[in-house]
């Protein structure tokens, strides 16, 4: 059963289309990662689902109820949206009590959630004395207050120390294992990889991928990296490997070969036949980060279309560069893979 379903969901802010014709289904239960570059529309999507903003067009349902009537499902959702926000002069406990009363929740639940996030001992201190990590914990506590079936957390580990990150990750996994649905929006892909079962990737307000995280990583494929003893051999190695049918890219002194892990010996042999001595040869599977960058391109959402050093200018490598379709009138984006560095044609 889908806990969230959107159909051609669109939200515009003036000329900017933050969410564009989004069709997304999130199944009940488990931890789902919501990822995308800055400005991709993640926060807008969350705000739409929580009823903080209204859609320009399209529709969406949460728990089978329309998002235009969020009051009907708000009691089943807990959320931490962007940075945690509280009255700084009030204690952590008073802040949570205020929210508990607003939701009609018993005060006893406040102690429960403070214990869960490890803030019970500091709960009488004013929030203004809290570190960012403590505020983050308090934000998670506030989200947990209604004992929600759906938990939406935007950058939940922001400001936490490594032990805190592991702790919160464990908490999210526990909640997911209990059959609740946890949606985690984050830029920290290693966190997403460690905590999530499924993934939704959006860019420029459009859905690029939705499904099991393993599927996305598998799509990115395995590769082998080879480092020639003499750096000047890098280009030649790329060429001979490409001639053998293995697309290779040169990144500094490292040649990245799109080949299965089992092809490592063949790569070594090919290099030797060409008179190139390798000082390193490492087969490895793709990481979520690589899969994500392959899917979304290397453009930072902050910077707009990239001018990253080392990347070929648009059109010079025969590949289309992603365009920003946020603006009305610009061409719609197309999902495509683009080499991180100079591509050597086979």
């Amino acid at each position: 059963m889908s806990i969230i379903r959107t159909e051609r969901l669109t939200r515009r802010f003036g000329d900017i289309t933050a969410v564009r014709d989004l069709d997304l289904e999130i199944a009940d239960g488990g931890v789902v990662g919501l990822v995308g570059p800055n400005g991709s529309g993640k926060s807008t999507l969350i705000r739409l689902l929580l009823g903080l903003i209204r859609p320009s067009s399209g529709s969406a349902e949460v728990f089978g109820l329309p998002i235009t009537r969020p009051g009907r499902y708000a009691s089943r959702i807990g959320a931490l949206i962007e940075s945690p926000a509280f009255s700084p002069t009030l204690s952590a406990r008073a802040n949570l009590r205020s929210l508990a009363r607003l939701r009609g929740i018993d005060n006893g639940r406040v102690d429960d959630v403070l214990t869960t996030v490890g803030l019970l001992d500091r709960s009488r201190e004013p929030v203004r004395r809290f570190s960012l990590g403590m505020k983050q914990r308090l934000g998670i506590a506030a989200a947990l207050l209604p004992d929600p079936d759906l938990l939406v957390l935007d950058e939940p580990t922001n400001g936490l120390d490594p032990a805190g990150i592991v702790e919160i990750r464990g908490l999210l996994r526990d909640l997911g294992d209990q059959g609740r649905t946890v949606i985690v929006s984050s830029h920290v892909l290693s966190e997403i990889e460690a905590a999530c079962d499924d993934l939704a990737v959006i860019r420029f307000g459009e859905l690029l991928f939705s499904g099991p995280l393993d599927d996305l990583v598998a799509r990115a494929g395995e590769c082998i990296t080879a480092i020639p003893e003499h750096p000047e051999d890098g280009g030649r190695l790329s060429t001979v490997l490409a001639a053998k049918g293995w697309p290779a890219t040169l990144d500094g002194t490292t040649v990245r070969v799109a080949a299965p892990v089992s092809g490592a010996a063949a790569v070594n042999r090919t290099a030797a036949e060409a008179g190139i001595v390798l000082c390193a040869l490492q087969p490895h599977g793709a990481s979520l980060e690589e899969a994500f960058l392959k899917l979304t391109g290397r453009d930072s959402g902050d910077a707009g279309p990239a001018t990253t050093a080392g990347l070929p200018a648009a059109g010079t490598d025969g590949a289309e560069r992603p365009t920003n379709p946020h603006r009305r009138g610009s061409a719609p984006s197309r999902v495509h893979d683009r080499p991180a560095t100079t591509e050597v044609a086979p």
Partner: protein
Amino acid sequence: MIHAIRGELTRLRNPYTLLGGVGLMAILGVVTTVIVFVSAGDGPRMGPAQQGVTVAVLEGPDGMFAGLQNAADMIGIVALAIWAVAVTSDYSSGLIRLLVQAEPRRLRLLGGKVAALTALTCLATLVTTAVVLAASPAIAGMAGVSTEIWSDGLLETVAKGYLDLTLAALLWGVAGLFLGMMTRSTGIAIAAGIGYLLVFENLLSLVLETATKWLPGATFSALAAGGSADMAYTTALLLGTAYAVAAIVAAATVFRRRDITA
């Protein structure tokens, strides 16, 4: 809506609001009372006692309220600030995201805030009235004003004085709510409120004397004073209520439709 009221009251129960807001109102009430009593003469005077408070007035049955009536505008400004901050701080801190997510029925949320702020304002004016009344005999003695007939109809006088002050403070507060909702900025809301009600309206009255007596600032002042030469008490009450309803409807409409992007 009861949940929204309880949630808002919990947040208002912080030392800055209680000691700062309520304390400031009480201090303004006492200081103005001292000035009014000390500066009172045999004839009408200008200055803080702008309504021409004379010793005879101060020695009358409602003389103890003369200072509070003169302080009503300043107390009103404090109320305006408290209400405006209650709205704008939700936006500036980002707390509005949590509140609207917890209670998406925004009119209930706003209704709870209005009810909680009304309760706080009533408490603040009650404390202010009590402090000023407690200090008044000593202030009168210091200024050489007789208090012999202050006890005549004391309860009725106190109830009426408290009611007028509270109603006026509530109207100022609603103005703060309106400005806070429109601007979402504490500084701009308070500056606009003070600028309009105390400066702009007074300047306008120099040019358009007849029309300005119906404007909000004049209405609030008339209500606090239990009626004035320009406006009967009942008229001030009705007009003030109309202003308050219009301001709340406008604020509610904006809040209900506005995107929460803070």
